[in-house]
């Protein structure tokens, strides 16, 4: 079971690959005319929105397309050998041995009923026929390599006993067990928190160097690709549209789609008022409804009738660059350096009177230690600790933090789904902290509304869109009769820029972005004064995100709504918020205006968060800070400062204060609050994390 012999050429060579899925109705082409080559030791990124066929390419390489999928054209060569011509046994030798894969959801990718050690040991035992003892030694070594604490205990645990970040490290270890020549990573960090993501990405990069592994890195996140890859391939609707080195594609893009993609993501410098994002118009074409000619044509700014919609468009090399190709007929004609046509510029809204005030809000949960059978000791989960802030009319307050920091609990208390343990919430003059939602007045309910994270699950699948909005109007007591409510519903659809005909559609007929628009319409149905948006765009594709964000901003401006924007994505937070609140383990560690929070002095946690966010801009230099370990459990928080277990500044504080005392809230001037023991000199001496390199 040895590896394939040495081969000089590219590790992976995909040539004019076409893959189709066959249903009873029709053949659905998922990938068309796709070519890419991965050289030894090289990392190639594959970028595109969901449904563009990037995962299908990965499964095609693994020859695991399922019953319905079939390669209908082209070849996939691995080390010079055509994978399609291999027998089942040969393929099995290659899988896991020569080509390994890392998946999107680590929890689902590990067998829940098998100990981790056994799952790891299986790989060398199958491929190299080694003994159990040797396989165990190898597993131990690899688990140490992926920097997991206490490797022996890890090998003896079941997957559910590990945190998400640890599980992903195990999946990486699984892939590295037999030192493969090619590693395929399919959105490996999408399910992880940003600081964990940064650590995992660093690990993958280091291990790639250490073992000399070639990588095919699939992601929708351009920033991540920039940090990990040497070359990249942009996919749109089943085709590669642009391919080249990272520098070429990022700085001298030659395809309109790539350009539009970059313009729709919030980079530092984008500002909701002065330089708004440019959303890509229209929707992603369904695989069986692709336009003739250029797939991107209908959404392209440079579209020319009679040229772009006529027949096949080949990939053409770009003069002067290294292996840089683009699938665009007009790339030589377009002036790529033309300044971005600025979108509508708007005045910065003036914050009005205080609408919402939180005063030392606390929320503790009691959980039985023995959850399954009751009894036993009660444990207290401190989900929110002394939360105090104010939010004003037409202000956007962003709440930032990783999973488990208490941002969702806070939203639940505000909405009335939970009642507060202690402290006060004032909505206007009214105290609402102890009023559960069933006892709230219609007016209170309609004035505090929420836009949810996942638009796919929050709409009733068996009710038309219009009916769902009317239902909300009925509950909020808007309109005297059905006709009035219907009129109001149609106006709401206009407000969220959906065609009125959508009122009679079922949610399943809508795309993700359209569903989220319905969610927004529902939230604004009763003229909400406060809208809590819980990661409203994180489930959407990049090109749709910008449009939905803009819509939210626009409605906010018109209605003078207070927007509480919960997110972990600092890029978008910087783009749209007026003030930012950073939370960690139930504590507010930093609170200030966007400029204050995004510039030094930082709270050490904010600093790490900023460093962890991948930014898709080659001109940006970032300080490299990687947090060790996972977020501690809220059930058993560390003593003293909640962040002390992962803080890199801890030794700068004299007397071990961080271990013993919770830092007080300090005001650094201009209402910039920070919860840290660091001295003023230390804070003043902090360097900015993100620097725009001098050109």
């Amino acid at each position: 079971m040895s590896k394939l012999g040495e081969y000089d050429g590219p590790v992976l060579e995909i040539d004019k690959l076409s893959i189709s899925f066959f249903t009873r109705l029709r053949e659905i082409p998922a990938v068309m005319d796709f070519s890419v080559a991965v050289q030894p030791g090289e990392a190639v990124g594959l970028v595109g929105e969901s449904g563009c066929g990037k995962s299908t390419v990965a499964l095609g390489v693994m020859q695991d397309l399922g019953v319905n999928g079939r390669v209908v054209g082209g070849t996939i060569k691995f080390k010079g050998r055509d994978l399609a011509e291999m027998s089942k046994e040969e393929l099995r030798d290659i899988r896991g041995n020569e080509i390994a894969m890392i998946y999107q959801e680590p929890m689902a990718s590990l067998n829940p009923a098998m100990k981790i050690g056994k799952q790891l040991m299986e790989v060398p035992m199958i491929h190299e026929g080694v003994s159990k003892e040797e396989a165990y030694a190898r597993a131990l070594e690899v688990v140490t390599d992926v920097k997991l604490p206490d490797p022996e205990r890890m090998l003896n645990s079941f997957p559910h006993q590990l945190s998400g970040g640890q599980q992903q490290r195990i999946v990486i270890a699984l892939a590295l067990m037999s030192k493969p020549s090619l590693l395929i990573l399919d959105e490996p960090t999408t399910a992880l928190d940003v600081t964990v993501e940064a650590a995992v990405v660093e690990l993958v990069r280091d291990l790639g160097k250490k073992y000399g592994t070639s990588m095919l890195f699939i992601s929708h996140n351009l920033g991540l690709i920039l940090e990990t890859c040497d070359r990249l391939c942009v996919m749109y609707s089943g085709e590669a549209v642009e391919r080249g080195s990272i520098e070429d594609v990022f700085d001298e893009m030659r395809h309109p789609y790539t350009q539009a993609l970059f313009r729709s993501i919030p980079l530092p410098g984008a500002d909701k008022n002065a330089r708004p994002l440019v959303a890509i118009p229209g929707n992603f074409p369904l695989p069986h409804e692709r336009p003739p000619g250029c797939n991107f044509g209908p959404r392209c700014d440079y579209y020319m009738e009679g040229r772009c919609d006529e027949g096949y468009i080949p990939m053409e090399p770009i003069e002067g660059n290294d292996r840089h190709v683009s699938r665009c007929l007009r790339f030589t004609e377009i002036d790529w350096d033309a300044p971005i046509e600025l979108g509508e510029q708007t005045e910065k809204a003036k914050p009005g009177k205080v609408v919402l005030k939180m005063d030392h809000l606390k929320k503790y949960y009691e959980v039985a230690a023995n959850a399954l059978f009751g009894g036993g000791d009660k444990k207290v989960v401190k989900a929110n600790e002394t939360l105090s802030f104010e939010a004003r009319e037409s202000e956007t307050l962003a709440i930032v933090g990783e999973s488990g920091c208490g941002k969702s609990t806070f939203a639940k208390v505000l909405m009335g789904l939970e009642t507060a343990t202690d402290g006060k919430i004032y909505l206007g003059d009214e105290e609402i902290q102890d009023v559960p939602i069933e006892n709230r007045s219609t007016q209170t309910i309609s004035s505090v509304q929420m836009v949810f994270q996942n638009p796919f699950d929050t709409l009733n699948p068996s009710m038309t869109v219009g009916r769902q909005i009317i239902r909300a109007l009925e509950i909020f007591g808007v309109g005297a009769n059905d006709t009035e409510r219907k009129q109001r519903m149609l106006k709401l659809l206009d407000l969220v820029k959906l065609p009125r005909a959508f009122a009679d559609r079922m949610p399943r007929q809508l795309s993700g972005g359209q569903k989220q628009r319905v969610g927004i319409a529902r939230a604004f149905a009763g003229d909400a004064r406060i809208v809590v948006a819980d990661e409203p765009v994180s489930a959407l594709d990049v090109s749709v995100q910008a449009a939905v964000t803009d819509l939210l901003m626009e409605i906010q401006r018109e209605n003078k709504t207070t927007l509480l924007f919960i997110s972990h994505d600092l890029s978008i937070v910087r783009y749209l918020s007026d003030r930012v609140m950073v939370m960690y383990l139930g504590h507010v560690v930093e609170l200030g205006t966007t400029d204050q929070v995004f510039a030094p002095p930082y709270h050490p946690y904010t600093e790490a968060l900023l460093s962890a966010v991948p930014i898709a801009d080659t001109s940006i230099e970032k300080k490299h800070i990687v947090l060790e370990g996972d977020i501690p459990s809220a059930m058993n928080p560390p003593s003293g400062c909640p962040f002390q277990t992962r803080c890199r500044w801890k030794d700068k504080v004299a007397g071990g204060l961080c271990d013993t005392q919770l830092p007080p809230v300090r005001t650094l001037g201009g209402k910039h609050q920070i919860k840290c023991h660091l001295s003023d000199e230390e804070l003043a001496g902090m360097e900015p994390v993100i620097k725009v390199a001098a050109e």
Partner: protein
Amino acid sequence: MGLFILRRLGVMILTALCLTFIVFYLTNLYPNLEKLAKTQGNFRMSDEAVQSWLGARGYMEPLPVKYGEWLGVLPGYVNEADDGKITGRCIAVNMAPEDAPTFCGVIQGYWGNSTVFKDSVWNIVSKRLGLTGWLMLAVMMVMVPGALILGVLAGMREGSKLDRTLSTVSIASTATPEYVSGVIFIALFASSAVGLKWFKGTATSAMDDITWVNFTLPVITIALYGMGYIARMTRASMTEVMTAQYIRTARLKGVSFPNIVLKHALRNALIAPFTVIMLQIPWLLNGVVIVETLFNYKGFGWTLVQAASNNDIELLLGVSVVSVFVVLLTQLISDIGYVYLNPRIRIS
């Protein structure tokens, strides 16, 4: 774990108390007692005679008192007849009243006497339970492995020809009730109609000595009926597991197909059918009535029918106590087994 089992045992005893009280109440309704008096005594008894007959046997006491006596927490009734003869619950036929114990109930191991079989309930229940126990054991040994193999084979490649064939077989077997399949089997394998006289059409002799010849047909008849059901459950669970991402992980790790099924899928796929299998045991205990009658095998189900049709109060109570305990015990085993199959659930 120990604490968990103790707690569950406590719940079991409480449930058993409640259920037996309900059965006790229903069997001790006056019309039942009247019928009992008339069948045991004389069909032409007057109402007064019935009253005194029942009174002399302690049946006219208040219900809680009677229940307490049956349990053995209250002293048994003692009745002195007009002729000075002392009878009582705890006084056996040839026993001096002074030697008799004060308490005699389930707790003391005295389950009463069956009026139909003229024997102590304990003897009858233990004997019949033993007989049905053998039948159940044989059925489980055929049914469970058969059903699991059928289900796993069908579920590992959803939609394949093997899947369709096996699914049809399991649906057909579940859709055929025992009284149909039993009769067909007897006609095919035990009668001169076809001529294949491989097995016996009656299992009466199996009560003393179990052989292939006399035991195969009843076992197969029950097993086939239950097998399809478990096989369908296993297949559903298996197809779901086979589409899970960790199976893809295993496949792309280079694991061969038989190993994927055996090492990765099987344990996960068994979690759901396990509960169903454990639920089959109480069903078998009473559900074998038809087959026991068909093959004339006088087991537990047959006893239950006899007790019910003859209003044999003490025997009915004994049978129901045993049934309750079997049901609760299998649930306990199923909960514990579940923990071992599914590592995500941990007790304590």
